[in-house]
């Protein structure tokens, strides 16, 4: 553990926050309107980088001024959170973004207005600070709730503890929010690939069937849209261990979106794509052709609703889904008019997914990229 490096980083961040605060104090003294400049987050400043194959944040800047009707509160909130982060860093503690919300939430003066009403209000401010002060969330000593589990042919170090991912029982190792190299190090890896499964329940099937042992791999899930920790791990597996990443999701727009987030990143965290996106990740299923290919009866399918159809139309236009195979896959889903859950394969038999489906797909290289 590079404690000196960590300490240096801490000081660097405190300095950044202090510098911004000093600037505001100075400007106010000069009777000017204090302003904060930061990259603009959101759709208008997000683009798909064709070369790197990921969603990135553009270079548009936004200015947030204090004496501005629409921005005053956010401006104030930004420094409230910044001050709270400074305290955290100083005390050497790390806490959840929910904690920070409570820590900074209070009633303003003798009004009935709160500094923050919902965590939905403080979370984006934290993201603003990450982008605006060029500080990673972990560098601010913040984390989100853990989500997702992992097992596999691999040993890791987590905050100095050795963890053998072959011996994690039925629940697996709970993936923390921060999976940076200074916290998690990969030690002994025999695995040859990584299988990401959308759902916890399906992941359990793979674990119980010892899929990872039989096929010498790592299996993990993120309970739906994977959180930062899971995405960061996937990226590190691809970068540091050069493992292929296979993504197994429901055959519906939501599943495709999850794949999309893993592969190219998300709009909201476009500035984190560089650390998290895995453009090489492979979509192995479920495919809209699987129903026919595996002769699944009609009753295990679910009809697409209007919203589903609308979303598929949107996805058809995503730049990273322009390849012929993808267009075919998506158009076919629309033509069939149905979606398929991973569990639909259990109609064949309970372990069809882990014993037949995935092994066959990988062996036949039946995936989309």
């Amino acid at each position: 553990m590079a404690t000196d490096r960590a300490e240096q980083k801490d000081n660097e961040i405190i300095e950044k926050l202090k510098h911004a605060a000093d600037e505001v104090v100075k400007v106010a003294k000069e009777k000017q309107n204090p302003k904060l400049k930061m990259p603009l987050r959101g759709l208008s400043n997000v683009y798909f980088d064709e070369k790197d194959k990921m969603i990135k944040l553009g270079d548009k800047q936004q200015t947030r001024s204090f004496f501005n009707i629409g921005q005053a509160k956010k401006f104030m909130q930004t420094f409230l959170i910044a001050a709270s982060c400074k305290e955290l860093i100083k005390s050497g503690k790390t806490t959840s973004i929910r904690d920070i919300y409570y820590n900074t939430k209070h009633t303003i003066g003798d009004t009935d207005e709160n500094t923050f009403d919902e965590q939905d209000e403080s979370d984006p401010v934290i993201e603003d600070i990450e982008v605006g002060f060029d500080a990673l969330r972990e560098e601010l000593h913040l984390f989100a709730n853990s989500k997702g589990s992992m097992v596999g042919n691999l040993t890791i170090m987590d905050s100095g503890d050795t963890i053998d991912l072959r011996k994690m029982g039925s629940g697996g190792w709970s993936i923390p929010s921060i999976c940076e190299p200074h916290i998690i190090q990969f030690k002994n890896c025999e695995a040859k690939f990584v299988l990401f499964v959308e759902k916890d329940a399906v992941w359990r099937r793979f674990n119980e069937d010892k899929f990872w042992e039989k096929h010498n791999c790592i299996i993990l899930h993120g309970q739906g849209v994977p959180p930062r920790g899971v995405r960061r791990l996937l990226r590190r597996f691809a970068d540091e261990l050069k493992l292929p990443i296979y993504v197994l999701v429901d055959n519906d727009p939501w599943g495709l979106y999850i794949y999309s987030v893993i592969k190219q990143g998300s709009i909201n965290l476009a500035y984190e794509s560089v650390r998290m996106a895995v453009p090489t990740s492979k979509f192995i299923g479920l495919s809209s052709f699987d129903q026919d290919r595996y002769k699944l009866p009609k009753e295990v399918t679910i009809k697409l609703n209007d919203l589903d159809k609308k979303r598929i139309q949107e996805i058809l236009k995503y730049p990273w889904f322009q390849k012929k195979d993808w267009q075919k896959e998506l158009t076919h889903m629309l033509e069939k008019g149905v979606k398929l859950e991973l569990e639909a394969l259990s109609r064949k038999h309970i372990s069809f997914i882990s014993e037949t489906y995935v092994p066959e797909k990988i062996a036949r290289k039946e995936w989309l990229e």
Partner: protein
Amino acid sequence: MAEDDNGKLRAISVAEFFEKNRHLLGFDNPIRALLTSVKEAVDNSLDACEGADVLPEIFVQIQELGVTRYKVIVEDNGPGLPKDQIAPAFGKLLYGSKFVTFGGKQSRGQQGIGISAAALYCQLTTGRPVRIISKTKKGEAQVIELKINVKSNEPEIITHTTIDWTKEHGTRVELEMEAKYTEKKASVLEYMKETAIVNPHASFVYIDPEGQKIDFPRVTKELPRKPESIKPHPYGVELGILERMLKETSSRTLKSFLTTEFDKVGSGTADEILKNAGIDPKISPKFVTIDQSDKLVKAMHGTKIMAPSTVGLVPIGADIFKKSLESEYNLEFAYAVTRPPSVYRGNPFVIEAAIGYGGELPKDEGVKLVRFANRVPLLYKQGDCALTKATLSVDWKNYGLSQSGSNMPGGPAIILIHVASVWAPFTSESKEAVANYDEIIKEAKLALQECGRQLQMYVGKKFKREIAAKKKEMFKNYSIELAVALSDLTGKKKDEIEKDLLKVAEEMLATGAIEGEAEAAKEEKKPKRKLGAFKDSGDE
């Protein structure tokens, strides 16, 4: 007329008619009967005072005699009635000149069928006579108790005495009836309040059944101008009326009939009408055939004739109307307008509207609409009334009030509309709703829109002031919060940072340099993230 058992027509007395049709005359239920009785008596009193150029001082009391029995007492300072006129005035239905056929002058009396109807109602429900005290300047105070002979429509005097009355002159009527007292909508109190608003020259004292005394002082000492009588305008004439006028006229020729009996018909106009009708001007009105009358009516409606004279109209006047409204309600803002006279079917009329805002008016209720015709409040049938229709046709959202769909706008506001007309256009005998004439709706709408514009200006200014105050408060509070955070981060003194921030706030507020008002509005309209269909998971 009514049919008897043999199917033959026979004449029935008006009193008999009343007995059979009291629902049409405002006596259909015990709550309304009480109110109608008060209304008739007060109308009489006001008319009597104004007729004698006396500033009205009217006393109204409701006494509870039993669970469903009440006594209505109305007393005025009018000229009093000569001894021999008392009995017919109170004991004969349709006595006096209130039921003019057409034309005439603006009066309250078109409202009901008179105080004798109330007397009859008392008699029918309690068997008690009506008691009247009346004193003229010269005579003694006469005290008469009388009943109405239902068959003959003639008063029957039960007792007749004289007393010493401290009053110089005036009339007092006491009516004992089956009734019900309510304090809800369409209550006597409400009626008193509204009557006081449109009769600013009168003072009222009201004592309710609990003995509580409520004063409605007068707002002006100026009596309303006495309405002049006007002749009917040809545009409003119908065949039936024309037939009767032809029969009753003393004119020798049809032409002189037209020039003497009608408003705005001179020799030239009369010639043109008759030419259009193709009738000889020299024939006697008595010999006009039905066929000819029909042609004559059509010609009267089809010939260009000057708009009717408006001398018969006596509006309240915008200034007094506003003042009067303000004296009854504690308001933040009030405005009133009197429209120029207009005409519906040959009848001149004037619309007046007033609006009150804020103050004691409730914020969370719909606007209260108060309707008047010839200075009498209309307390029932709001939904059927042209004035209601006009109110709902205004887009109040443009004028600073909330409004969902075409419902009554939201408070805190009160809207008053007064239609003054020689012949108030009611929908039916109950005289509680103004009929839907386009001209009346249009005029009412114009009046309301003007009130609306004034209100909007007031509300707009007030809103701006409130926003400014809110902004100031907001920047002050945020500055204090920000100063704490900045002090934590920089180690500098909180108080000093706060002081600096507040100084900038003050300066920027004063010079209007605060940013973002336009942007703030735009920001709200901007669509959310397009891919928002897929909301990123919160805890990414």
